[in-house]
């Protein structure tokens, strides 16, 4: 039993959960988005700052479980400093890993600490937790580049 849990709660994840990187909302930024996991109420506000085609900063304020918090921290480590194209390709790789139900062997070269989330893919209910920040980042990046926002963000005020 606990080996199953250990596959999910890798030390890397618990470390990022306890000491999240790049936390907080910072200036400057071109786009800010607010995403919610409606199933459980986890929320994130995330800003991106893109400069000369490079992800100059990703800053955030978030509440949620260990998986969502750790994946936010790992995301920022991975994308900050990369060319936007490159970062989007990492995003795609992470997305595929998460949707693989555990059938994909993660590539440490590309995903670095994010390989720790391979175990999450076997917990379908937790995949949304791991993806919350990643979806928010992609959305914010699209907005900052003036391309179309992701459908998932279309929400209306009652």
């Amino acid at each position, binding site marked *: 039993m606990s080996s199953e849990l250990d596959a999910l709660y890798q030390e890397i994840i618990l470390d990022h959960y306890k000491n999240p990187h790049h936390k907080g909302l910072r200036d400057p930024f071109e786009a800010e988005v607010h995403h919610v996991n*409606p*199933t459980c109420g986890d929320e994130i506000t995330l800003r991106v700052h893109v400069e000369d085609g490079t992800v100059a900063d990703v800053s955030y304020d978030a509440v949620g479980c260990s998986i969502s918090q750790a994946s936010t921290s790992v995301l920022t480590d991975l994308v900050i400093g990369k060319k936007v194209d490159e970062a989007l390709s990492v995003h795609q790789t992470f997305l595929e890993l998460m949707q693989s139900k555990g059938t994909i062997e993660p590539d440490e070269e590309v995903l670095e600490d994010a390989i720790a989330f391979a175990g999450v893919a076997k917990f*379908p*209910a*937790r995949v949304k937790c791991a993806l919350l920040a990643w979806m928010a980042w992609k959305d914010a990046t699209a907005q900052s580049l003036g391309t179309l926002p992701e*459908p*998932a963000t*279309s929400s*209306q005020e*009652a």
Partner: protein
Amino acid sequence: MLEGLLPDLEVVRKDFPILTRTTPGGGPLVYLDSANTSQKPQVVIDTMVDHLERHNANVARAMHMLGAEATEAFEGARDKVAAFIGAPERSEVIFTKNASEALNLVATTLGWAGEHQVGPGDVVVTTEMEHHSNIVPWQMLCQRTGAELRWFTFDEDGYLDLSQADELLTERTKVVTLTWVSNMLGTINPVAEITRRAHAVGAIVVVDASQAAPQLPIDLAAMAPEERPDALVFTGHKVVGPTGIGVLWGSRALLEALPPFLGGGEMIETVRMTGSTYAGIPAKFEAGTPPIVEAVGLGAAVEYLSALGMEHVHAHERAITGYALEGLAGVKGLRVLGPTDPAHRGGAVSFELAGVHPHDIMTVLDTRGVAVRAGHHCARPAHEKFGVQSSTRASSYLYTTPEEIDALVDALEYTRSYFRLDD
């Protein structure tokens, strides 16, 4: 043998447990009321039972083992339905309780504040051959908003009068809604052509595919965008699925522009007492616990149909309908209401028999094990057009055999003699 029948028809019939039922007199049951509701193959029933006995849990919100299984089964059903109609995106498939709710969802939300809001002076166009479920919601919308309801009429052979198009489709026309296949006349309407002309004046097109989905292959993604409706609905129980579920397919553009219909759990993003924000599609239109086991059953149903092949189901319907039209033509005093060319119609055949009221026909047929429908078939305006109150309708499906059509014709002859029509 009749050309076009499903190969292995007898094997297919074994999939449907109810077809082994007999009448009180011990005779076989001849079910010719499939346009009203279809029978269910064992695989649909078994899939629902397996879900209830082994995987039952709420979806999305329940994240434990059973919750994950139920969610996968439910969302898997959405994928299957999306594939069945060739939906461009799976998120465009909304589960409702039946086709009627799907039509009301669109009609009601078009009356509320939003990009497409219908208002005084606007025109909503429907047809005179619609099911009540595609008339009343639009009457209610017009009544609430001050818009005007107008309609295509049809000719005595049951075909829409397209010469009215120029007059009906103007820049005032906001919505055009029509049935793909009439549940009373059987007519197959030129949906692509009407959609193109409606789009040309900027109207939204809503298609009632309640009778089309069971019989015709549908591939929305393959349609030319200008000929593709903006919304299309059908109902689970007519495509060998369970009751309690219907489908609204809507283009992402339309569904995002419409305000939400029902409010509650699952359709929200964040709720505060002072105001709420809503989820994206499909959740936005699925308030509350969805019809979970029904979706799972519907998924199995459309898979069953796809395994048979909708082209084959369609060919079967056409063959049986042609055979029925021939047989009925031999019954003295019988008049078919609707097209008599099987190439232009579906499998619902409504008729009058001079001298006997449809109720009485239905009862005589029923005592001989032949189940048909008598009444207005929820299409009273179409009946009025023919100057009748009601009619008798025989409607076949993929499990119908030529012998069952023979039984219908025999029973009608018996009815004539029972009521001494030739005396």
